[in-house]
């Protein structure tokens, strides 16, 4: 019995140590603070790249679900109802991923360059807009339709929104920095931003 309590106490102590260690290493929140242009570039490009990876997998998932329905399969997505389920799930996942990206962009802070505030605002505006777009598509998908063709149109809009938001991700960082030569230099020197540039152009 005594050893049982000792083990429980050991596990609790281990958990406390883990939480303490994570508190020490984690959570770099520069929201509202100025940071070096290089750090800002690394952080936002990393966040957007991770988000693009997630969106790519969501787009693939929605597309393959749309085409993988087999006749007689209850879970297949051949019918509008089945496809609606996969698009709905895709939109939910896209919203979650985009909200995470918004959080990452906010935490990246403001680059310490002449137009840093504008660049940060521009990128945040794009990120918030992406969330709004997906939410609008979600609402539209929830509306009643009169015919199958209307429903299919809704689905196409839903898929289109995911794809459009995904495609806009790479350009958004570049657009936000276009009027700031110092920031452009930081972007050019960041390996993460180079990756993003290559990803976006491929």
């Amino acid at each position, binding site marked *: 019995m005594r050893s049982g309590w000792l083990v429980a106490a050991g596990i609790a102590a281990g958990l406390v140590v883990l939480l303490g260690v994570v508190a020490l290493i984690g959570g770099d929140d520069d929201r509202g603070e100025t940071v070096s242009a290089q750090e800002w570039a690394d952080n936002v490009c990393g*966040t957007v790249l991770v988000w693009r990876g997630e969106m790519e997998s969501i787009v693939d998932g929605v597309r393959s679900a749309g085409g993988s329905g087999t006749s007689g399969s209850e879970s297949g997505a051949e019918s509008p109802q089945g496809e609606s389920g996969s698009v709905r799930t895709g939109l939910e*996942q896209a919203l979650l991923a985009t909200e995470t990206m918004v959080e990452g962009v906010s935490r990246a802070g403001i680059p310490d360059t002449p137009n840093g505030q504008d660049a940060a605002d521009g990128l945040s505006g794009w990120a918030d807009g992406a969330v709004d777009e997906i939410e609008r598509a979600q609402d539209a998908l929830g509306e009643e339709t009169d015919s199958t063709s209307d429903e299919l149109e809704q689905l196409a809009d839903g898929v289109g929104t995911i794809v459009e938001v995904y495609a806009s991700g790479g350009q958004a960082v570049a657009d936000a920095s276009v009027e700031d030569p110092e920031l452009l230099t930081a972007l050019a020197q960041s390996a993460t931003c180079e990756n993003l540039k290559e990803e976006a152009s491929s």
Partner: protein
Amino acid sequence: MTSMDWFLMALQGLIVIFFIFLGVRAGGIGLGLWGGVGTLILVFLFGLEPGEPPVSAMLIIIAVISAAAAMQAAGGIDYMVQIASSALRARPKALNFVAPYVSYLLTILTGTGNTFFSIIPVINEVAYANKIRPERALAGSSVASALGITSSPVAAATATLLPLVEVYGYDLIDVLLITIPASIIGILPMAFIMARHGKDLDDDVEYQRRLASGEVSPPAPPAEIVLSPFAKRSVAIFLLGVAAICVFGLFEGLRPTVEAEGGGVEPMSITPLIQMFMLSAAALILLLCHVKANDVASSPIFRSGMVAMIALFGIAWMADTFIANNEDAIVELLGGIAENFPFMIAVAIFAVAALTTSQSAATRTMVPLGLALGIGAGYMIAMWTAVVGVLFLPANGTQIAAAEADTTGTTTLGKRVVDHSFQLPLQVCWIATALAGIVIAWLFFGDPAPAAPVTTTPVP
């Protein structure tokens, strides 16, 4: 989500837990049957869409158990017990350390914890023959096997993680250089604690009751086991089957190709290959070891495997029905906690894995969040090992199969849902592994992601 939605989700969660509770109290196939009732209520009362029953896992259990049961009917299990006992003669308790590492390695090589099914009967029999409380080796090995997923280059969860951390300069080798040593370190304290956990069989009330009632025979000393003429051959065939799975698991290029969803071809999944190799091993044992098919079906391993399969069917179906309909809300809730309290990210990964019973879902949703919170990618890889939390609830196939295989009754699914045999090794292992991984990431990888801010002047 409205308050009503949250209330309904909580109510559905309580129903799931209640039926797991009823199932573990009933034991055996009761777990599956009550799981079926739970699914019925979720679908009819709450209008949820039924989830997917774990068909792949069930088919793997059938195939693996067929091979293991055929080997038992040919006397192969007795031979393996003799060999293992002979190797462990000086220190039989070393089984508590060896078995988890073997299980861990098997998962690494195949990328799925389902291969652990094949050695559950062997671990159980070796432990029992050496009068070791089977729970010690079985529970620790189940956890180690699940942990092996995060160390496997061919696991689905690793494939999900990789693109997320590649952005920060971590490739597959880097991931494995963090997760493998961390897991090896993490398994050690778990095995150490498990080697001392619970009463010895001679003092265990439940085991003594089963022994007295004749439900279980006393262990035969390994030296006194009389081997059947084809015992060695059956073991060789079985091990060849396992080796083939490992080779095809590790080297994707050897697998037959199938049509890919997006066009082109891709290597076949390892799941059907496991089924094919194990069924073939069973057939070869029948053919070359002169075993009658009826003897396979009446072997103890076959019986416990089938019970485990039914139990898994009902309970995992119920869990998936709940999860498939509520996954986003669960992730949103736990993600919100981690967002507000970033130090909770490791616990949040563990909790998402526990509540969704999916390592891939926990990876897909929580790792990007951790990265967005500014936590270094190396540290996130270390904490990603917390996806072993899938064993938190006793709804996993390996847990059910291990509990069912242990005829001494020491390995249990608990009485209050979370007090099962796997909880202690799970908690020790995930915390130790995450901590070890963080230290490794700090010592050898640093944190290339967010550097310290140059200026931190608040903007007016």
